[in-house]
């Protein structure tokens, strides 16, 4: 029925568009000089009718359910609900609903059957009423809009104002969703810290979150110190940066300053393909190619290498970051004015001297900004480490051992058995909050640096 309502109101609005446009055209053909083009008169009618009607239908859809529930419950024979707890009342309502849906178990009391019938008829009435209201409202608004068509009516101004209102609405939606996400994160984090002291979480050196969810489960006592987890993240991030920064920068410098046009035309798209590879594919690459290769290489040297090394995960993450850093560095280098290149070459510098002594220092703020953004991507990267890094939090900086990361822990804490009054599950939110804060700070730094550098040449 909701679909019918929307179809009707859009049909009416489109009819209003055509009607108003026609009316305006007729006026124009009659020799009048209209303030707005006919299309704007049409759009004015469409927007006037569609927006309020859509809002009304949406509210109707949200409110219809609870109102009907309330009507059904209050329409029950007097005394049936007396002395029932809130939970029991909900159970009764659920039973009535399933009877209304045709799923009848056993022989329900006659008053329940009666209530189910009432529920069905109320629903029917509500839906029909909604369609009628939508049609009537949009029709009325179309009529009102039609009245406005005249040579002096400023339809374009109205339409532009409405559209800019819509844009503001969309922009605020994004902002409010962000706030909502942060708020939900914050809410659960506070609940976690009611159970586990902040000090223990921030400074504890043990991370053993697999505590029992129910009485009958056998599990460890549990410890929630995030140091080993964040240390694992840091180790993997550093390994990723050790690979991606030099390779990314060198390739950017080569492509931007040295490569002949033909090489550039081939190499750049390939690098961009690398940026488009889904991270889960990098994950495959890490566990199926890099990790076994590292292990057998280690074995040939007599060094024990764990199957889920930080090295494999960090290395593959580094490969993922190469195009990211490279494209940022390229942007920064190409933002350096051509006149500086000529100035340097004109003094008799080689291209290498020009790059290292003039371009690179001039581009360094942009490059640093790009690297910081890469860092926050590495910290938040999930799929590669879920597949290639370990699960056990170990307090180590040895890249050949298995470490875990914040993102891996969040994933493992939230899959399988969860219960939202248990520190095991809530710990995921605390970790998420910390991750959010860390990347937020890094991003703010990065954006500030990038912005500062932009001012130099503008």
């Amino acid at each position, binding site marked *: 029925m909701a679909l019918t309502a929307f179809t009707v109101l859009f049909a009416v609005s489109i009819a209003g568009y055509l009607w108003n446009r026609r009316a305006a055209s007729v006026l124009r053909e009659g020799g009048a000089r209209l303030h707005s083009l006919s299309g704007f008169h049409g759009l004015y009618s469409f927007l006037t009718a569609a927006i309020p009607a859509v809002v009304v239908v949406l509210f109707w859809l949200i409110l219809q359910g609870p109102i009907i529930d309330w009507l059904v419950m209050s329409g029950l024979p007097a005394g049936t609900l007396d002395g029932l707890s809130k939970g029991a009342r909900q159970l009764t309502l659920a039973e009535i609903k399933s009877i209304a849906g045709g799923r009848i178990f056993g022989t329900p009391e006659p008053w329940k059957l009666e209530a189910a019938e009432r529920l069905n008829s109320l629903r029917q009435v509500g839906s029909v009423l909604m369609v009628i209201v939508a049609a009537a409202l949009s029709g009325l608004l179309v009529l009102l809009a039609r009245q406005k068509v005249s040579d002096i009516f400023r339809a374009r101004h109205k339409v532009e104002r409405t559209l800019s209102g819509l844009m503001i609405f969309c922009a605020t939606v994004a902002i409010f969703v962000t706030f909502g996400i942060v708020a939900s994160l914050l809410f659960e984090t506070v609940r976690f810290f009611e159970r586990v002291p902040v000090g223990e979480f921030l400074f504890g050196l043990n991370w053993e979150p697999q505590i029992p969810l129910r009485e009958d489960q056998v599990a460890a006592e549990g410890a929630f110190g995030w140091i080993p987890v964040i240390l694992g993240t840091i180790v993997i991030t550093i390994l990723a940066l050790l690979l991606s920064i030099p390779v990314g920068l060198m390739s950017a410098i080569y492509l931007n300053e040295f490569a*002949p*046009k033909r090489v550039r035309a081939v190499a750049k798209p390939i690098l961009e393909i690398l940026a488009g590879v889904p991270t889960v594919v990098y994950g495959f690459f890490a566990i199926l190619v890099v990790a076994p290769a590292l292990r057998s290489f280690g074995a040939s040297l007599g060094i024990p290498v764990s199957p889920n090394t930080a090295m494999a995960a960090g290395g593959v993450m580094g490969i993922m970051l190469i195009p990211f850093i490279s494209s940022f560095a390229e942007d920064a280098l190409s933002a350096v*004015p051509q*006149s*500086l*290149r*000529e*100035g*340097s*070459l*004109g*003094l*008799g*510098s*080689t291209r290498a*001297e020009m790059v290292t*002594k*003039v371009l690179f*220092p*001039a581009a360094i703020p942009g490059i640093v900004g790009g690297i910081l953004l890469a860092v926050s991507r590495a910290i938040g990267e999930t799929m590669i480490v879920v597949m290639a890094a370990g699960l056990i939090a170990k307090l180590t900086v040895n890249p050949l051992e298995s470490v875990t990361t914040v993102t891996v822990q969040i994933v493992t804490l939230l899959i399988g058995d969860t219960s939202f009054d248990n520190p095991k599950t809530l710990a995921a939110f605390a970790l998420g909050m910390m991750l959010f804060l860390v990347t937020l700070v890094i991003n703010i730094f990065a954006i500030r640096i990038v912005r500062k550098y932009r001012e*130099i040449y503008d």
Partner: protein
Amino acid sequence: MVTDSSSTQPIRETARPVHQERTKISTHEVDVFYGAAQAIRKVSIDLYEKAVTAFIGPSGCGKSTFLRCLNRMNDTIDVARVEGTILLDGQDIYDPKVDPVQLRARVGMVFQKPNPFPKSIYDNIAYGPRIHGLATRKSDFDDIVEWSLRKAAIWDEVKDRLDQPGTGLSGGQQQRLCIARALAVQPEVLLMDEPCSALDPIATAKVEELIAEMKMEYTIVIVTHNMQQAGRVADRTAFFYLGDLIEYETTAKLFMNPREEQTEAYISGRFG
């Protein structure tokens, strides 16, 4: 002095007699192509040592392109191709044995827009000497920096803030800084590509004054849009039109008594 080179001054008659001069750069039938388009056609010209030569002509006539051949700056443009011979002190600069990097140290360049590096004033000047290894000790660098800035007549304005960024100077100061930067590598020739087009009249006058002083020691080639400027600073002037060298004469003769009709039309302002 500034008043000497103001625009009311008649065209100077100080071009030295030809017989005393030595040819510094000699070009023979130089063609320049950008891809398929020909920008310069068969230009042969002799540029004299310790004199100022101006290239004038309407926009797009190839004067800057030709200037950039003289220190092989066109090499940095992929599609540019240069044919013909250009001799510097009798040596072909397009000979494979010649390293363009060393050539550019001998033939310095000042660009249209001041382009100081985003470094301190000191480092801007010391950049060239550093890459060419002209000094090793700090005190030697200090001397070069002071000498260059004095030569470019900007020492008194910046001596107290050598550690400040060169980009913080005014446009005219930046351009003189760039001239000082070019002088610091001790070039023999200085190519100036419309060095005053981004400057106000007062800064322009200062740069022109500087050019007049520098020609005691350097061979200077200047591209300019501004015919009065050519008249004020140049001993000889070459008029380019649509890729051809139309006329090359002492400045006085070219402006007073041009041989070619096109030159006459251009300098009298009938086109350009």
